């Protein structure tokens, strides 16, 4: 096979390959900047960014095609810690992180720092509780672990059910984000744009499975981080003369605090646990903790993240890889609050209180895009008051280049970055679902004698089916991006965290205990989510349904514990198996012979 020849060469030269790629991308951006100065239209620049980047991902996807199972499912377990960290960063950071998070911070201030904390701290749990042990276990999927540790297909199927519910909810949100970006930058209707994006997802994952997804995700990380940092670094340099926005936005926060007094803002940006009237609120206080906990535990339970740690060459590298993952994620997350602060300061200084006839150009441009930024002169005095200016949270990042007065090429860059974020996450999710269905359901339960060729074919067919389903559901616009993503975290946390963690850390966990506990936790979480969302059930203790795992998680742990204690302890063989995954060296004992 052609790629075998180049394979060793590729892995040995990762630095050169991706260094050259980064240089090439920067060169391409500069070239477009020059073309823009020479009068090339904005539309062409938008097209160039969207199609060229998707083209590159497709190229990597095709180069990485494979017909080998371990390459297809776990990238041959040859991904070095550093690059797996980058791939995990892209896998992890989705449209919600890239497009919506900074906007949420702009609108809600401190309250939304819960997302920043929740979406980073979970990696500590991944590192200490799960990643190295799952890597040592060394099979293909997360349900694989459940099926082996809890002896049988019942546990495996329960795992697949939770995995599917969480990942599918998540994938719908990504398709939604892809639709928004593609439709805005190439000017086609939302529903059609979703399907264009879908092609972008499928070309990356279909031929090469995990291997292709890994190497495209590294490429996507590079684009998304450049795209996120450039505008905000530019703005920081322009305003404060220092190109480190993470340091300079303190000054912006101070100016905002001053302006809040003069403008009469009741809910200060940096104030913690306050309601809309600016008063301390116990409800806000509780919801802040609930959200952090659910997002963190969800991080440590989402199969598309966990399966990334199946791909490293060793247990040691799996652990290091978690460090690199959170480092690469951190680069974007600790910049997001700077975005929010700069944008807010700009609005307070140069938009509010100005005559409506002479607002900055970016306000004019964006108020023409349907409903995302509205200016309504309620008291008809020709001056813009704070209450007369309404901005949608999803446009803060996308509008930043214009706010900073940057050329249009940077807007194109940001669009490419947002697209990279959404595509990479969608790819990871899609693969997690298709692998679970093809490996755990089809191969392990329906046809254990299936040939390699047949298994790969089934997996690819499922990939396409799930992708189309996801896009179709996204076309109905079921809910907002952030909300759908947060639900996915709660579902995964309530269903998977207890059986995974207890399976490794508590030998006494029995199969019956784990299965009953898992379904109880997941059931409670799902019940709360559905009832509050669709049947107007009053909230329990005022906890919003984005944190529904707050109720499912303890139920899962308590039920697993109680049922385990009243059922027969796991066999000696099972205890040996647990011992063997707790030690990095040596063989995994009886993993296959158990059933």
């Amino acid at each position, binding site marked *: 096979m052609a790629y075998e020849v180049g394979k060793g060469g590729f892995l040995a030269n990762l630095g050169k390959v991706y260094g050259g790629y980064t240089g090439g991308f920067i060169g391409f951006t500069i070239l477009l900047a020059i073309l823009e100065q020479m009068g090339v239209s904005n539309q062409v620049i938008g097209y160039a960014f969207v199609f060229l980047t998707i083209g590159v991902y497709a190229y990597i996807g095709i180069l990485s095609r494979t017909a080998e199972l371990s390459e297809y499912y776990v990238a041959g377990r040859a991904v070095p810690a550093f690059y797996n960290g980058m791939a995990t960063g892209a896998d992890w950071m989705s449209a919600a992180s890239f497009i919506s998070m900074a906007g949420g911070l702009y609108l809600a201030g*401190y309250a939304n720092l819960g997302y920043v904390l929740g979406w980073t*701290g979970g*990696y500590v749990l991944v590192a200490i509780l799960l990643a190295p042990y799952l890597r040592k276990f060394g099979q293909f999927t997360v349900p694989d672990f459940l099926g082996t540790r809890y002896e049988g297909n019942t546990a495996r199927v329960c795992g697949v059910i939770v995995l599917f519910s969480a990942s599918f909810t998540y994938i719908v949100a990504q398709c939604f984000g892809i639709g928004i970006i593609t439709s805005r930058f190439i000017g086609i209707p939302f529903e059609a744009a979703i399907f264009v994006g879908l092609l972008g997802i499928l070309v990356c994952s279909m031929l090469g499975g995990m291997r292709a997804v890994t190497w495209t995700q590294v490429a996507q990380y590079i684009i998304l981080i450049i795209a996120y940092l450039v505008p905000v670094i530019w703005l920081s340099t322009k305003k404060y003369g220092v190109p480190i926005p993470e340091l300079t936005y303190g000054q912006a926060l101070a100016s905002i605090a001053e302006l809040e007094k003069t403008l009469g803002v009741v809910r200060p940006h940096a104030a913690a646990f306050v309601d809309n009237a600016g008063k301390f609120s116990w409800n806000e206080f509780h919801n802040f903790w609930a959200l952090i906990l659910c997002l963190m535990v969800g991080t440590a339970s989402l199969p598309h993240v966990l399966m990334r740690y199946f791909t490293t060459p060793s247990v040691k590298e799996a652990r*290091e890889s978690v460090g690199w993952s959170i480092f690469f994620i951190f680069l974007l997350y600790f910049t997001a*609050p700077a975005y929010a602060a700069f944008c807010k300061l700009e609005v307070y200084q140069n938009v509010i209180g100005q005559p409506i006839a002479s607002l900055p150009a970016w306000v004019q441009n964006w108020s023409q895009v349907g409903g995302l930024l509205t200016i309504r002169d309620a008291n008809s005095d020709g001056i813009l008051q704070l209450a007369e200016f309404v901005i949608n949270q999803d446009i803060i990042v996308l509008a930043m280049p214009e706010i900073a007065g940057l050329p249009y090429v940077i807007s194109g860059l940001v669009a490419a970055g947002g697209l990279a974020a959404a595509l990479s996450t969608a790819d990871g999710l899609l693969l997690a679902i298709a692998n679970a269905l093809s490996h755990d359901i089809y191969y392990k339960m329906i046809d254990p004698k299936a040939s390699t060729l047949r298994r790969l074919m089934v997996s690819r067919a499922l990939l396409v089916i799930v992708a189309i389903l996801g896009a179709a559901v996204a076309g109905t616009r079921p809910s907002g991006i952030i909300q759908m993503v947060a639900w996915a975290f709660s579902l995964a946390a309530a269903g998977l965290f207890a059986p995974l963690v207890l399976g490794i850390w508590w030998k006494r966990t029995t199969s019956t205990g784990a299965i009953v506990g898992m379904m109880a936790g997941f059931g409670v979480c799902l019940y709360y989510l559905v009832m509050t969302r669709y049947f107007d059930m009053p909230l329990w203790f005022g906890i919003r349904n984005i944190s529904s795992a707050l109720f499912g998680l303890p139920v899962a742990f308590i039920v697993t514990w109680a049922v385990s204690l009243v059922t027969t302890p796991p066999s000696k063989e099972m205890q040996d198996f647990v011992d063997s995954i707790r030690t*990095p060296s040596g063989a995994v004992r009886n993993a296959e012979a158990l059933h």
Partner: protein
Amino acid sequence: MADNLSPEKREEHWKKTSKLMWTIMFWWFVFSFGVHFFAVQLNQIVILGFPLGFYMAAQGSLIAFVVLCFWNASAQNRIDEEFGVAED
């Protein structure tokens, strides 16, 4: 090879591993929840324009998480080498 590990050694290795896990978990808890409990009070202190409570949630805790992950990787590595159970 780990298969040759005596049960006592194995138990001791796991004891040390668990101790490290709880230590990291403790700091994780401090930076995830403990610090932010006092956000309202910390916000009274302003450094370089940053109210401290806001800063901790926006940057401070995040830096701590990164450090914790790398610390865990190297400390666990030392434990594995001490017991001779690191991979070849």
